[in-house]
């Protein structure tokens, strides 16, 4: 838990350190505009960036945070909080949908393989799956995004900003599918391996000896015993998804936090970038907590004895 809080602080510190190294600030762009007199620039600077020096700015931002204000975005001319409120749901939808799609497909794949393992095609399926997973992982998410734009029918492009869907009112099926594609092979491999380990346990044979079918044993005994591996994997998936959302949102024009972050960095908008980093770190922390709770709930030994 302490680690996760340290994470937020560390990321914020890095952001501030980088901005300190940057020559120029949010007003650097305006300098290039010959129509704006230097006096105006100086006045603007005095008004919004009265503090010089990183520590002073950091302190100012931190006190603002304490009071519940996230600052003002100079690049977008709006309070940061309202920008986040508008964009965050879009990213959350994308993340949620991609998470569900990726896990559903990976689980289906791994479970089918486990169920058919003993049959005639079991060995073949295993080999083909392995090769398919290896080849699938070689496709970079950015490339899949680009190809998706070409291949997808026009109807699926609804909701993407570049295609006239400015508000994130719809569900980002295409973007989520592209994002999920990146994770399915790795999730399948991990799940298949976890199932394999669980299947090798003696209690599986004991359950079959009681007359249970392979499917019932798989569902009632094997799958629950993979939770210890799969639940942490789930939280790791969220963290990695957050990283890839930036790429997918930028390439497919989904108006979420990732796209916002790229714009913020391009325009050196420090309060906005810091707020996004803060929000994403909070999301990672929340996922960690949920994952710990889930493990506690599903593992009786952890619940009753505190450790395995």
């Amino acid at each position, binding site marked *: 838990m302490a*680690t*996760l809080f*340290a*994470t937020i602080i*560390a*990321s914020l510190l*890095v*952001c501030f350190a*980088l*901005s300190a*190294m*940057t*020559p120029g600030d949010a007003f650097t762009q305006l300098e290039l505009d010959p129509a704006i007199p230097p006096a105006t620039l100086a006045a603007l600077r005095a008004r919004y960036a009265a503090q010089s020096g990183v520590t002073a700015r950091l302190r100012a931002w931190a006190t603002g945070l304490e009071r519940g204000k996230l600052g003002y975005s100079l690049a977008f001319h709006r309070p940061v909080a309202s920008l986040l409120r508008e964009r965050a749901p879009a990213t959350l939808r994308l993340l949620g949908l991609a998470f569900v799609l990726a896990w559903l497909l990976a689980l289906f794949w791994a479970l089918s393989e486990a169920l058919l393992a003993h049959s005639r095609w079991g060995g073949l399926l295993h080999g083909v799956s*392995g*090769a398919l*997973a*290896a*080849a699938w*992982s*070689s*496709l*970079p*998410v*950015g*490339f899949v*995004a*680009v*190809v998706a*734009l*070409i291949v997808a029918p026009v109807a699926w492009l609804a909701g993407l900003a570049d295609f006239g869907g400015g508000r994130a009112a719809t569900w980002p099926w295409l973007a989520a599918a592209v994002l999920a594609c990146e994770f399915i092979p790795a999730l399948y*491999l991990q799940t298949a*391996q976890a199932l*394999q*380990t669980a299947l090798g346990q003696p209690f599986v044979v004991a359950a079959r000896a009681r007359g249970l079918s392979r499917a019932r044993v798989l569902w009632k005994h094997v799958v629950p015993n993979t939770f210890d591996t799969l639940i942490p994997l789930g939280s*790791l998936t969220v*963290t990695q998804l*957050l*990283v*890839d959302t*930036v*790429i997918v949102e*930028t*390439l497919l024009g989904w108006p979420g936090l990732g796209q916002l*972050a*790229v714009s913020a*960095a*391009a325009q*050196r908008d420090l309060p906005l*970038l810091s707020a*996004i*980093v803060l929000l*994403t*770190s909070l999301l*990672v922390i929340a996922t*960690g907590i949920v994952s710990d709770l889930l493990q506690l709930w599903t593992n009786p030994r952890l619940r009753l004895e505190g450790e395995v």
Partner: protein
Amino acid sequence: MLASRRFWAFAAVAAWALLALAGPVFAPYAYNHQDRAAILIAPCRDCAAAAPGTAGGAHWLGTDQFGRDELSRLLVACRVSLLLSLAMAWAALLVALPAALLSVGSAAADGALRWLGELTRSLPWLFMLIAVRAALPLDSPRWVILAVLVALFAAGSWAVPAWVLRGAARDLLRRDFITAARAMGGGRLYLLRRHVLPNLAPLAATYFALLFAAAATVEVSLSLVGLGVPPPLPSWGNMLLPLKDIALASRAWWLYSPLLVLVPVVTCLNLYAFSQARRRTG
């Protein structure tokens, strides 16, 4: 041995490495040589017919939107991506392996490294890359940008291999032959060098392959959002940039050429890594 998957994977990667290192020597054109009369022409043997006014000669893989020969750029890109991915994977492993060994040395180091690993795993290193790239002055030398890529990749990826290697090292140290070596008076450093490292090598090799594969694919995604190898130096990623234009992407099929090399190589690396992993548990 010929039937083993490992052999073929290794052979494929070796062939690609050879192509990458020696290939540019055989490139018919310089990678940034532009022929304005020969823009976006399909692969042709004698291009004088396809593009009047051109200097003639063959373009085996066509030309891109600036009239640069695609084949030559691909050969150079192979070398660039090879070296960059190598550097990224090496950097990550160079942090992971000593970290793992240090953590089996003392409990304090173990705790510290565990904490550090969790921290770096949760940090949004992509945002940091964006921020750093934005912070760098526009005329930064190329090597600075590439160094930043390598450093941030290593920072983001060292944690998982370090954790697994640490686990494997601990298991090794508990084994009987270590006790025997200790009984014979072997000091810690000796044990590490003679017994632990050689036995960790296969696991480290597996992770090297995975990191290499990840580095190559990550570079492509980053280039497509403008954070990869800076043009005009070609890499697999930035050679795919023109495909962001939908019209081009559906028409100029030869521009997909980097995938011809990327997909087989990364697939082979993955197959190698997976077969190692499956053998260990199966």
